[in-house]
């Protein structure tokens, strides 16, 4: 006869669907805990929405694991750093760095970039020369020549530059690079391409390719490349800490990147705790407001009842999404505003249900007995009425969690998300706006969509498992 907490638990555990739900939610929580422990809380503003941070990442490339299904070998993303230098004298004094890398692919790298860290000089500013040597031995001399600007007046030697942020040169964007490639093509192949044409065709094919019969640079020259960085200095004590050369790959990471070069796996991971946070806070607040107002409405009755019920009728009949858009637009795109608006429009349905349950419960004799014993209305509502509706409230809370997550995703998708927190909805929205669907960037659209669905489903599973606990009619006979 008795239905203890243990019975409830075993009833819940008996269904396969609740086991699945619990397993899923444990995974969700584990990932969230990991993210919270390892990511800074200001991840959104500090990293995610800062294009500079993602500059050296490839733009809009698929995950690396897609390679195993593809016949075309895409070049890997390579970040090559070295601080090993030699001092040489060739006319002038030189600091020389050598970077070697292997390129084996059927596609050209997406881009190349060069960075230099912490330059210290005493007299004239140094001049940086970059030379690329292809595996077949042909060289692009002085691919890049960059003169470090003079220190501003008033500074005393030693002059330190590029200490906080490095000197970074994006090779496809540099006119000097175009010019030297044009020179290289003229002397090596007798080609007459202008620097502008070279830019439009993409400099990578000339840096990493060789011409076929028709003269087009379509073949990737495979083998070991060498980048020589020579810093021409005018004082023996001048130093360079390190240099970096990035060969932009055509595949990246576990989840690929978006068109800003952001590593989607990182953004998707950060979405876990955000989604759970929004879901839990919203559903908790909503059920608290809904059940408190519902109990008051049902138990106190009269004018209070009328007022609460009319307000919830109005809220129920307003089209929610346009109002949500309107309010978030007015109040500002802040996560708390979004939660608040979701709560304000979420409680009314629950209130109506709870009220009808309370109307029935308050007719019971133990309520009358409690009134006779002098208990106040508040006491009765808290001690006698609430326990009657508590199981229902609890399942409603779990049911409402996915609704809140989906609502936030919908708002984000409409561009009304909190910009300081990356969410799955926002990643979807960026993808959609950039035309990821038409460009075929499936890795930008499918994973966030799936994660939203799976998270919502996980709560639905748990709520389904709880139903027979709350509603004895659904219990299986054993």
């Amino acid at each position, binding site marked *: *006869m*008795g239905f203890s907490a243990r019975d409830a638990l075993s009833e819940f555990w008996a269904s396969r669907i609740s086991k699945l739900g619990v397993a899923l939610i444990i995974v969700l929580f584990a990932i969230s805990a990991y993210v919270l422990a390892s990511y800074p809380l200001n991840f959104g503003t500090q990293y995610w929405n800062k294009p500079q941070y993602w500059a050296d990442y490839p733009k809009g490339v698929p995950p690396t694991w897609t390679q195993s299904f593809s016949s075309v070998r895409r070049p890997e993303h390579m970040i090559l750093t070295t601080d090993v230098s030699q001092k040489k004298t060739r006319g002038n004094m030189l600091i020389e760095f050598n970077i070697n890398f292997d390129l084996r692919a059927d596609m050209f790298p997406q881009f190349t970039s060069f960075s230099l860290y912490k330059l210290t000089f005493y007299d004239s500013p140094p001049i940086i020369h970059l030379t690329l040597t292809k595996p077949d031995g042909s060289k692009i001399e002085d691919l890049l020549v960059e003169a470090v600007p003079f220190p501003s007046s008033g500074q005393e030697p030693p002059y330190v530059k590029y200490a906080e942020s490095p000197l970074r040169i994006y090779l496809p964007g540099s006119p000097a690079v175009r010019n030297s490639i044009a020179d290289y093509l003229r002397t090596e192949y007798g080609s007459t391409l202008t620097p502008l044409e070279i830019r439009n065709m993409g400099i990578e094919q000339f840096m990493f390719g060789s011409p076929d019969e028709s003269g087009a640079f379509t073949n990737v020259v495979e083998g070991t490349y060498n980048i020589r960085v020579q810093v021409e200095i005018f004082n023996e004590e001048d130093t360079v800490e390190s240099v970096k050369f990035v060969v932009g790959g055509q595949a990246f990471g576990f989840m690929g990147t978006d068109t800003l070069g952001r590593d989607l796996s990182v953004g998707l991971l950060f979405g876990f705790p955000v989604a759970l946070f929004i879901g839990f806070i919203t559903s908790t607040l909503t059920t608290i407001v809904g059940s408190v107002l519902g109990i008051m409405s049902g138990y106190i009755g009269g004018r209070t009842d009328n007022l609460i019920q009319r307000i919830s009728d109005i809220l129920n009949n307003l089209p929610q999404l346009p109002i949500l858009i309107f309010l978030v637009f007015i109040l500002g795109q802040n996560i708390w505003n979004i939660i608040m608006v979701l709560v304000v429009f979420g409680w009314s349905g629950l209130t109506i249900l709870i009220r009808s349950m309370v109307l029935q419960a308050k007719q*019971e*004799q*133990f309520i*009358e*007995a*409690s*009134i*006779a*014993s*002098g*208990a*106040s209305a508040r*006491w009765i509502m808290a*001690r*006698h009425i609430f*326990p*009657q509706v*508590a199981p229902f409230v609890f399942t409603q809370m779990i049911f409402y969690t996915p609704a809140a997550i989906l609502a936030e995703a919908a708002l984000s998708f409409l561009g009304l998300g909190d910009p300081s927190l990356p969410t799955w909805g926002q990643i979807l929205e960026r993808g959609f706006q950039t035309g990821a669907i038409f460009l075929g960037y499936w890795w930008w659209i499918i994973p966030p969509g799936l994660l939203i669905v799976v998270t919502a489903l996980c709560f639905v599973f748990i709520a389904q498992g709880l139903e027979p606990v709350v509603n004895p009619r659904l219990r299986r006979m054993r």
Partner: protein
Amino acid sequence: MMVLKIRDLYLYYQTLRGEVKAVEGVSLDIEAGEALGLVGESGCGKTSMSLGVTRLLPKNVSVYKGSIELEGKELMTLSNDKFRNEISWKKISMVFQGAMNSLNPVIKVGTQVAEPLRVHLDMDEKEAKAQVLEIFDNVGLPPETYDRYAHELSGGMKQRAVVAMALIMNPPFVILDEPTSALDVSIQAQTMNLLKRLKKERHIGMIFITHDIALSSDISDKMAVMYGGHIVEMGSAEQVILSPKHPYTQKLLASTPRLRSFSQPDFIPGAPPDLVNPPTGCNFHPRCHMAMDICRERDPPTCYPEEGQRVECWLYGDKDE
């Protein structure tokens, strides 16, 4: 010592059909340690009267007047808040019809019995538990009942828990509204013995509401018979049972089947009066086998045919007055 003194208590309800005159001019006295058995058929105003005394009034009450004195203190002039804080359960407690429904199924029995202590005396759970266990012992419930839920108890145990709840504040006066209905006979006997013992030990004044005259006579010192919102006859239990004066009481007693007797139980023709439009004169005259002309015209007088016996009937009154 007089515990409860009611004078001319009126309680009317406003309904869509009109005003229901549920209690009309009821007066009665109860001494400390005395039980008054209040009998009458359904809808005669027994429960309304007890609600009037405990002030558990429904929202549609239109008339509520008269005088209720508890231990010499007038209750009718007290504000609702004051009544709730000082009188409810501390001075007047109640055992409701059907013990089963008086216990909240989702709260532990002990917690519920302790509720008045927590509400009125602001006791913490530990103190309250000690008191509850004491009263449980008194009513014959084992201590482990404290942590049980209502559905885990038998009918008799539930009844005891409800009685324990009524007595937890040690009130001088308790209203028992059909406390034994829906119990089987052996449990009924157990409960009655318990109530009799508690009445003696604790010296509590009681109103025992029932429609079972035999049961009522078992515990009552005094008995009152109610009909159509009036107390038509009141006296000591012996007087009312052995020499009933009012025709209604006589008929009521005659309708009770007797053990080892071949006489057919009698019945009362007609139906209880409609309290929205009560008959003129005596409420009982349409069903009365001894009705006279005057009964239809004028309200019956209050007569005292015997010492301590009060009857509202023209049979004993001076018709020429």
